[in-house]
């Protein structure tokens, strides 16, 4: 039972990252391999905001989200736009985002050094125990924060104009262009939103995991796996996939084997890809070109 509880905060983080992947993929057909590193950058930038400007947690969160969102826009503009103009094969786009990941990871290394940094948490990490189960305020904050962000995103997508434009593009890019949607702007928005979400995920998880320059790599990969398991391109499916993966990992690690935990995750991934490539939580198998 405790395993389930443990899986929730991790699952929430995976859900946020998976969401970001699906958002970008749906909106622009791009697989953004650097998503995980946005998580890392978010944590580091917030850390620096703490250190040098002594801002409070919420302010650091918002500030970092904003800055990383801006970085996302820059990436989209400088890298994805030229690629799209040149009609590059999709695999080249993936490789380009891989390059972004490598560069951002090593720039972070150069700026902040190889040592792990502690991230102060606004809430305590003393456990509250109920019977055999314990949970910390930290965990609750992560899950709560994640849900808040998802709620905000939902609102933005459903109610605002820009959000509706994004959804239109996701559904049918050419029709949206015909209807006058500026796809460059919507792509940029998708990137900004995903980057900001990633940053938030990083800040939420940082107190638990420390801030290191390679924290993004693992989370990014797992988030991607979660998105695919859930059903790539669909946001609710991504969220479900994220929580699913978090809980499965927790259970597998505890009950089956800690060393093989990741191997189990990847085997699960390959099985899903093989037997139900549209994802576990998607109803229809959509045609993936």
């Amino acid at each position, binding site marked *: 039972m405790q395993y389930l509880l*443990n899986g929730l905060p991790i699952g929430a983080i995976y859900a946020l990252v998976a969401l970001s992947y699906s958002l970008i993929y749906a909106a622009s057909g791009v697989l953004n391999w650097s998503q995980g590193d946005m998580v890392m950058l978010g944590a580091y930038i917030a850390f620096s905001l703490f250190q040098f400007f002594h801002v409070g947690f919420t302010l650091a969160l918002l500030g970092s989200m904003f800055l990383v969102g801006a970085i996302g826009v820059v990436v989209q503009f400088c890298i994805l736009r030229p690629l799209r103009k040149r009609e590059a094969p999709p695999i080249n786009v993936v490789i380009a985002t891989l390059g972004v990941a490598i560069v951002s990871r090593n720039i972070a290394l150069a700026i902040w050094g190889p040592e792990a940094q502690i991230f102060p948490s606004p809430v305590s990490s003393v*456990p509250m125990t109920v019977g055999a189960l314990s949970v910390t305020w930290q965990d609750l904050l992560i899950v709560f924060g994640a849900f808040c962000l998802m709620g905000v995103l939902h609102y933005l997508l459903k109610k605002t104009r820009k959000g509706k434009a994004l959804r239109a593009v996701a559904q049918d890019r050419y029709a949206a262009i015909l209807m006058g949607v500026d796809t460059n702007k919507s792509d940029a928005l998708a990137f900004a939103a995903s980057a900001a979400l990633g940053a938030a995920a990083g800040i939420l998880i940082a107190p638990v995991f420390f801030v290191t320059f390679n924290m993004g790599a693992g989370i990014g990969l797992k988030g991607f796996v979660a998105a695919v398991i859930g059903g790539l391109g669909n946001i609710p499916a991504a969220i479900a996939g994220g929580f699913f993966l978090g809980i499965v990992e927790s259970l597998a690690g*505890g009950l089956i084997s*800690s060393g093989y935990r990741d191997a189990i995750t990847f085997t699960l991934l390959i099985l899903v890809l093989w037997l139900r490539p549209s994802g576990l939580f998607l109803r229809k198998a959509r045609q993936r070109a």
Partner: protein
Amino acid sequence: MSRVKNWLLPLLATLIVVCLIAGLAGCNQAASKKVLKIGVVGPESGTAAQLGQGQHKAVQMAVDEINAKKAAGDWQLEVFFEDDEGNPTKSASATNKLIQQSNVNVIIGAINSSATLADMVVSGRAGIPQITAGSTGASITQQGDKWILRTAVNDEFQANELVKYAKDVLGLKKVATFTAADDYGQSGAKLLAAAIEKQGLQYVASPTYNNGDKDFKPQLLNVKSSGAQGIFMWGLYTEAALISKQARQLAISAQLFGASGMAAQKLIELGGDAVQGLVLTQTFLPDSGNQAVRDFVAKYKSKYQENPIPHAAQAYDTVYIIADALKRANSTAPDALRDALTKTGGLKLVTGEPKFNTQGDDIGKYLLITTIKGDTFELLKTVSGS
């Protein structure tokens, strides 16, 4: 014609360029003075960077001192550093470079056990003595390789003393281990298991983790439900700090133990409250009272404005061991050097009185059992000899 030329041309070009570079750089001036060249390999970047950088600084300081006070007779020392990022392939390349390019006569390296093993192949094939001041993996000195020596503290010694302490002083009966899934962690796990059996304690759980893992709660839950009173960790400081933190978050109150691999100030910094009271073995504490230690710390502090870490102390001693051997051998020939090194004795250094056994392990090291109190390590007990 175009088709074949397409791939021949680039191939030719590459070969020609390589030949040119090789030719240009081929001239190496031979040193005619009495100079011993030392090559140092260590992780100066990456996750174990603090260890590699500590080694670098200490070796540099030792070389400067020895040259200044002529502690090696008429010989001068020259040192070359290479960063291996803790990666075995890069470490082997770095060792190769030091031996082939810089013509070093002895190698100090590496810190990560898997890197040292890879380097040993290179130094063994080239016939150059190699001393590791940081690797504690057991297999290093069990290969029958006659070119490798180790001045890092013996893992077996540490494991035995930790378990003994747990039983004699803390009165624990049920214990668990939580070890890294790399060579260092797993050789430690084996030694701990043997020690636990020898002391007659109950061994209730033994999960492992991968370096770089961030979530240890599943394994910790297993340990919690096994009822262990003590958890022996064996790995590096970042993971150890995280494990301690997460253990406390799960309301696990068992006593935590660790070994020299995690003995760094960063452990306390990252672990904070969670690592208070953690008991670990190390070879060196800045204020452990010994005169040699005090001198070393003072010199290091005035030069680098920070306290030295155990790996630094071990590396520092290693250079002195080399200088002493050099004086006795009075030559840079590999065999002479190696023989002189193996016969080291009578030195009283910062981390012990070095003496090598037939396998190449230094069995004269002091072992300090320490605990974390506040934001420093506090000495509990000193054990010497193996």
